[in-house]
């Protein structure tokens, strides 16, 4: 019968006797586990950031951009032509059943002035629908209405960054700002959204009615022109339908023949972002895999030391066998020694990994998230490494001939 608690005691004593060596052996596992945890924390942090950006952008989004591809054989980049109109946006909302809301966009950069402060920002001409499309709520004030769009009133909604730069601590609601020298009343402030998936500050923006932008701020090449529009589908499962319906409707509205190419492009933003999220996850896995290699190397280090230990303690093994240690008594002793090394190494590695992630996010500014799963995983993996690499030395020890072992000098 094997007495596990006593065997553990024996193993721990053997490790204590050789403190320096035990510590150095653990180092491999410590670095391995620490690296796995830190790498996964970096990866998870990046994924989480992208996830947040996707949800800040709004969900189930399609974006329609003009100027598809060709102009008389010369292929132009998307957006080089302006082909979309406010009427297109309204038609999409009206006629495509899979579409929930449409937000037209006529944007440009403009200098904005309030009192003695001025600031250059992106001004977006749009409709109240845009707020729904982008899941954007106001932190104060009230949004402009369809009526404002119809009448092209000079009202505006400010992003938080604009408020910070122009107003400081003053409440902007009801104040008058000048956009390209045109006076606008501030109706409300947009809630803070943070960075976009592209890394832009989404709060550095001003929303005004699209008609006001067309007539009073930017001007248009033709009546009703807008640059792009964002479309919110009724749900994730409607995205493909919405894309198809928009394509059909716009081809018809733009009178594009069956063999002609589109003068617009519909892009599935959500899909693009999900693809990016996927690639981040792959990166996380990759980082984790690379870190696991160091864990493996740590395991080989343990095996190395255990083999030396078995040779060094041949006489001890002989004595134990002479007084009745059975095959598995000897095996377990060495396996538990290896396991102890790797588990203590794992624990220290967890501490190092967690602090390391903190330091990384502080120094490099990367968002890191240490998930409990990664701790559990790397800890149990280090245990497995201990058992796996401890087994061969233990097996070798248990096969010694008692007499030869006793006589070993």
């Amino acid at each position, binding site marked *: *019968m*094997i*007495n596990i*608690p*006593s065997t553990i005691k*024996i193993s721990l*004593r053997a490790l204590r*006797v050789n403190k320096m060596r035990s510590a150095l052996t653990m180092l491999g596992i410590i670095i391995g586990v620490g690296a796995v945890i830190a790498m996964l924390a970096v990866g998870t942090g990046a994924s989480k950031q992208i996830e947040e950006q996707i949800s800040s952008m709004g969900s189930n989004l399609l974006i329609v951009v003009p100027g598809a591809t060709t102009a008389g054989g010369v292929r132009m980049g998307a957006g080089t032509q302006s082909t979309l109109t406010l009427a297109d946006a309204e038609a999409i909302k009206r006629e495509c059943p899979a579409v929930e809301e449409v937000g037209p966009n006529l944007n440009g950069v403009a200098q904005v002035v309030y009192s003695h402060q001025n600031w250059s920002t992106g001004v977006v001409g749009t409709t109240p629908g845009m707020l729904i499309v982008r899941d954007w709520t106001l932190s104060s004030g009230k949004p402009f209405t369809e009526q404002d769009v119809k009448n092209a009133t000079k009202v505006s909604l400010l992003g938080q960054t604009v408020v910070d730069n122009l107003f400081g601590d003053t409440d902007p609601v009801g104040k008058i700002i000048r956009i390209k020298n045109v006076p606008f009343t501030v109706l409300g402030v947009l809630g803070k959204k943070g960075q976009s998936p592209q890394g832009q500050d989404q709060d550095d923006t001003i929303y005004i009615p699209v008609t006001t932008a067309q007539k009073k701020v930017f001007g248009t090449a033709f009546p009703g022109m807008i640059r792009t529009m964002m479309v919110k589908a009724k749900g994730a499962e409607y995205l493909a339908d919405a894309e198809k319906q928009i394509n059909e409707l716009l081809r018809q509205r733009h009178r594009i023949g069956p063999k002609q190419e589109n003068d617009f492009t519909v892009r599935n933003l959500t899909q693009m972002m999900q693809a990016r999220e996927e690639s981040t996850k792959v990166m996380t896995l990759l980082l984790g895999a690379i870190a696991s290699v160091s864990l493996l190397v740590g395991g080989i280090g343990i095996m190395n030391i255990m083999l030396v230990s078995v040779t060094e303690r041949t*006489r*001890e093994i*002989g*004595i*134990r*066998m*002479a*007084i*009745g*240690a*059975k*095959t598995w*008594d000897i095996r377990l002793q060495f396996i538990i020694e290896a396991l102890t090394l790797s588990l203590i190494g794992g624990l220290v590695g967890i501490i190092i990994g967690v602090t390391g992630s903190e330091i990384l996010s502080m120094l490099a500014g990367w968002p890191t998230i240490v998930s409990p799963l990664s701790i559990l995983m790397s800890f149990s993996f280090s245990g497995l490494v201990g058992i796996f690499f401890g087994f061969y030395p233990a097996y070798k020890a248990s096969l010694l001939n*008692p*007499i030869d072992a*006793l006589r070993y000098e």
Partner: protein
Amino acid sequence: MALIEVKGITKIYRLGDIALKALCSVSLTIEKGEFVAIMGPSGSGKSTFMNVLGCLDKPTDGQYLLEGIDIGRLDRDELAGIRNKKIGFVFQGFNLLSRTSALENVELPMLYDGMPAKEREERAITALKSVGLEGREGHHPNQLSGGQQQRVAIARALVNNAPIILADEPTGNLDTKTSAEIMELFVKLNTESKITIILVTHESDIAAYSRRMIRFLDGCIVSDEKKGIRGQGLEVGKL
């Protein structure tokens, strides 16, 4: 039934092409409670014979019955069990675990027998007391004299109540006075606890403590004499 019954034990070592016959067809019987000294010059096969008796080595040929159990039929772990329960070893070099206290050294055989910790400790303390090492339980081997280390080894051999103690040159590393003390301890164990003691030595004054002397030469038994009274042997040794 004899305690130990050995029939035609032969041991041949093969070193490359050369076959070395360490034991050639040895047969003998040892009864319970005997005190046997095995003597002979080095290379006579006495240590090989002890290893066979101690279930540490298997003979090339022949049969070994220990309390009627055919040792040749047992596997590795069963042999370990026999060594644990039936045989206590005392070696010339003491063979204690270094960096391990006397108490823990004595506990070791019981540990491999799966005894609960409390009982283990109690019995180890009793065993150390019986060999005169009371108060030295926490000492490590390097803090003990040679004689004390050998006493720890004897306590370890006793603690599982093994009926046999095999001692291989137990006084080889000790001075004359300590040797005498250790031998007196063996005599006491033999007479009071009826433990069978088999002792390998090449010193006749050590062998004189025994009541039966077996001499080996070139792998064979050349003489086997029993003495009625222990005192005789003792006097012979002192001459």
